[in-house]
């Protein structure tokens, strides 16, 4: 039995569930966190979304049928939670204010980037939410399009096109600064 299959068995077993879930969290927390953080930027928001993701995963353990890997399943929940969070946040405040965003990044104690990295964050922020998620997964996390396709449930062709547009827009943003 593989490690993953063994972990799934323990997650389905009432007595071992809590310990197995802690192992699952330890195994995937960093990848999930960075996926979320790159989308929401701020640490406190990323922490909230990640904890909600894990709570939802816990509540949905009985519905996990093993059709995908545990990591992919968690990624899907995290993506869904992140998109919901961003939708609610957009309703509350305008995201068009570039200067306010830059100021927020400069004041963020958990952001160490220089001016170029601030500009990159701004360029990424201007992408539509799904395109931004695809860009982050491919550019920073170097995930294969096939893996991203499993998370999104979208065709590889559509993802390649989405990534192409994202890279093109970000390149154009930097050209406009020159």
């Amino acid at each position, binding site marked *: 039995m593989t490690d993953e299959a063994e972990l799934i068995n323990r997650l389905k077993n009432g007595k071992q569930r809590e310990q197995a879930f802690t192992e699952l969290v330890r195994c995937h927390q*960093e990848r999930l966190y960075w996926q979320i953080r790159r989308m929401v930027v701020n640490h406190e928001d990323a922490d909230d979304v990640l904890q909600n993701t894990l709570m939802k995963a816990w509540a949905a353990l009985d519905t996990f049928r093993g059709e995908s890997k545990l990591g992919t399943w968690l990624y899907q929940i995290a993506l869904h939670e992140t998109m919901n969070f961003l939708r609610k946040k957009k309703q509350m405040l305008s995201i068009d204010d570039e200067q306010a965003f830059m100021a927020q990044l400069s004041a963020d104690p958990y952001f160490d*980037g220089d001016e170029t990295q601030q500009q990159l964050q701004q360029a990424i922020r201007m992408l539509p939410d799904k395109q931004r998620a695809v860009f982050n997964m491919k550019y920073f996390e170097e995930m294969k399009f096939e893996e991203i396709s499993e998370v999104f449930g979208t065709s590889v062709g559509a993802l390649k096109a989405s*990534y192409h547009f994202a890279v093109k827009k970000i*390149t154009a943003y930097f050209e406009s600064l020159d």
Partner: protein
Amino acid sequence: MKGDNDMTDLLEKRLKEQVGKENPFRVPEGYFSTLPDRVCVRIARKQRERRMWRWAAAAVMAGCVATASLLLVRQSGNIQLAAEAGGYNADEVEMLLDYNMVSNLEIVDYITEAE
């Protein structure tokens, strides 16, 4: 399609040269080592809340059943009184009450069944 892929690769390469792909974000010290415990605490709290809600729902249900039983007991007492006042026996009054509560739909059902 291949042309598009080549173009994407070219743009991506240029972007990496220009801005790199280092992670500029940090997390508070010890964040990842404490996260699983914090999640477990939240799960335990949620489970406690859920149990409390179940108890509360059960208590409300029990209250409803008790109130309904009390009303029924009172109503049968009233039926007894009405029967005595009108010279009917209690069974006849209950039959009349049942008849009053028959809906039009039930009457249609009864007629069509009889046919």
